[in-house]
C-alpha cells in the first residue's frame, strides 16, 4: 500500500481534477466520489489533502463517515494508526 508524507497528501486536494484524499488515524482515504467532498471541500470547514484525525473530534458525526471510504494508503509519521 502506498505511503504518503503529509506534503504528498496535500497534493490530493480535489481541485483541478486531482483526486481528493484525506487522512484519518494513519490511513489515507479516497473521498473523490463523495457528494459531500465536491471540489475537495467539506461543509465549509475542511479541505481534502488534510489529516482529519483531530478535526473529527469537533465534527457532528463519528468516524463511521470516514471509514466507509476506500483506503488508498498509509500516512507516514502518524502515531495513531488505526488497527496497528
Amino acid at each position: 500500500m502506498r505511503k504518503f508524507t503529509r506534503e504528498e497528501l496535500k497534493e490530493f486536494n480535489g481541485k483541478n481534477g486531482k483526486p481528493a484524499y484525506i487522512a484519518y488515524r494513519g490511513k489515507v482515504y479516497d473521498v473523490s466520489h463523495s457528494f459531500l467532498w465536491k471540489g475537495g471541500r467539506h461543509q465549509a470547514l475542511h479541505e481534502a489533502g488534510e489529516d482529519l484525525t483531530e478535526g473529527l473530534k469537533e465534527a457532528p458525526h463519528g468516524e463511521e463517515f470516514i471509514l466507509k471510504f476506500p483506503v488508498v494508503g498509509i500516512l507516514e509519521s502518524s502515531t495513531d494508526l488505526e488497527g496497528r
Partner: protein
Amino acid sequence: MAKVAREMVERSGVDVEKLLELLIKNAAAELTTYYYYTILRANLIGLEGESLKEIAEVARIEDRNHFEALVPRIYELGGKLPDNMKEFHDMSACPPANLPENLTVEEILKVLVEAERCAVRGYTQICNMTAGKDHRTYDLALAILNEEIEHESWFSEFLGEGPSGHFMRRGETSPFVSKFLK
C-alpha cells in the same frame, strides 16, 4: 447587508465567511430536499405508504420554510445565493434524497430519515459555531434544529427504532421556525 450586525458577529470571533458558506449550503439542502421530498411523497402509496404521506408532506413544507427563514440571514450577513440553480443544488450540505432503487415504503423511509439526520448534524454544527457569539443565527439554527430533530424522530419511529415521543402537527407547520417567517 446589516453592517453593524455583521461586525458584531466578526468581533465575537466567528469566521463570517465560513458561517455564510455553511448557511448557504444548508439553505441549498433545504430547497433541494423540498424538491426531492415531493417525489418521495408521491411514491408513498398503498395501505402502508398512504399513512405516511401526510407526515412526509409536513416535513417537506417545513424544509421549505427553513429555506425561507435562512435566506434573510444570509443577506443580512453579506452573503448571497448563487445565480445558477444547478450550482446551488450541487453545493448542498446534504446528498440528494433520491428515490431508492428498491421502491418499498421502508426504503423510502430510510432515505427520509438519512436526509433528516444530515440536517440535524448540519444545524448542530451551526449552533456550536454561533452559540454565545452570533445570537440571531444561533436562534434561527436552533429553531430549525428543533424541527429537524422532530422530523428524524417521526421517520425513525416508523422504521422501528423506538417511539418519537410526540404527536404529529395539528394543522400547523413550523412551530419553532414560524417566528422567522412573519
